[in-house]
């Protein structure tokens, strides 16, 4: 979670006191525990566990030949990895990767059902299955990305990939600048499911 601005005026101290008063009264009355608020926040901060997709992307960033194989035949390239059995996709399902470049940004969506490359990305987040999200991403991808705090340059082309039972897409995000010295493992730690869905970029936080 990011904090960007500093506010310092009377309305601010009033709001801060108001929220503290609410929390204190709720704790006094036994409605919430003293840890409740922090627990909810922890959930949002640590929700992202390690996942297989991050390893694929990191490998592709450091190994151009692997990247070429991943783009050409995703399912076969995934099979090269040391993933638990079944992670290359269940029977009859093919996964395919689309690469983000400087001028082209890809987003994955599924308008028919919720075909999601879960072996690679983990379980789909709630909003991915939401009909409004799916419909709007197809209709107005730039507006949706802006709501995700990820506005695109006017000049960037957006491609929306609609998954189906036959092909499940995921995105190979751009490698952030300044990460040339990082190892595959270090890189993998920064790759989020959102980046591989195309609703965020990979960021390396200082």
């Amino acid at each position: 979670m990011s904090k960007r601005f500093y506010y310092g005026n009377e309305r601010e101290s009033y709001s801060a006191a108001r929220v503290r008063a609410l929390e204190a009264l709720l704790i006094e009355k036994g409605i919430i525990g003293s840890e409740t608020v922090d627990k909810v926040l922890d959930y949002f901060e640590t929700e992202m566990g390690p996942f297989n997709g991050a390893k694929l992307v990191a490998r592709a960033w450091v190994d151009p030949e692997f990247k070429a194989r991943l783009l050409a035949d995703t399912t076969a390239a995934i099979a090269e990895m040391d993933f638990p059995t079944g992670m290359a996709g269940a029977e009859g399902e093919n996964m395919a990767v689309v690469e983000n470049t400087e001028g082209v940004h890809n987003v994955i969506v599924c308008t028919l059902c919720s075909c999601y490359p879960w072996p690679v990305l983990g379980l789909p987040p709630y909003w991915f299955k939401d009909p409004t999200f799916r419909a709007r991403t197809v209709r107005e991808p730039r507006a949706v990305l802006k709501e995700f705090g990820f506005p695109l340059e006017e000049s960037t082309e957006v491609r929306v990939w609609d998954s189906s039972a036959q092909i499940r897409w995921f995105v190979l995000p751009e490698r952030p600048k300044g990460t040339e010295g990082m190892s595959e493992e270090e890189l993998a730690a920064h790759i989020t499911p959102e980046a591989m869905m195309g609703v965020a970029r990979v960021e390396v936080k200082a």
Partner: protein
Amino acid sequence: MQTKFEHFAATSLMGGSEHPPRQNGELMFDREWEERAFSIAISLSKKGYYEWESFRQQLIYSIAEWESAHCKDDSSYDSSWDYYQRWLLALERIVLGSSIISSEELEAKTNEFISREQQATSNS
């Protein structure tokens, strides 16, 4: 698929005027009280004191109220907009409305924190 309540609550706000600010996909909080207000709203609904949808409607209403009082052509339109001020207002209303806390209690406690804060500042 199992969905955690926290995830459901945060993502059900997407796609409308009431969506929380995000930065590169993640929820964005500028000030500490914002994340606490965010979390209190979710905690109380999770514990069943109100339906999440009721909070969402309250939030939509609080946002609409601000919008009807401000003109889009106003130069201060963007700078005076504050998402979490609206969130806090919606939270206060739903908490007071569901009789968990009385408005007198909330006033008294708020003033207690403000004077404590002022003392701390004048002592330092």
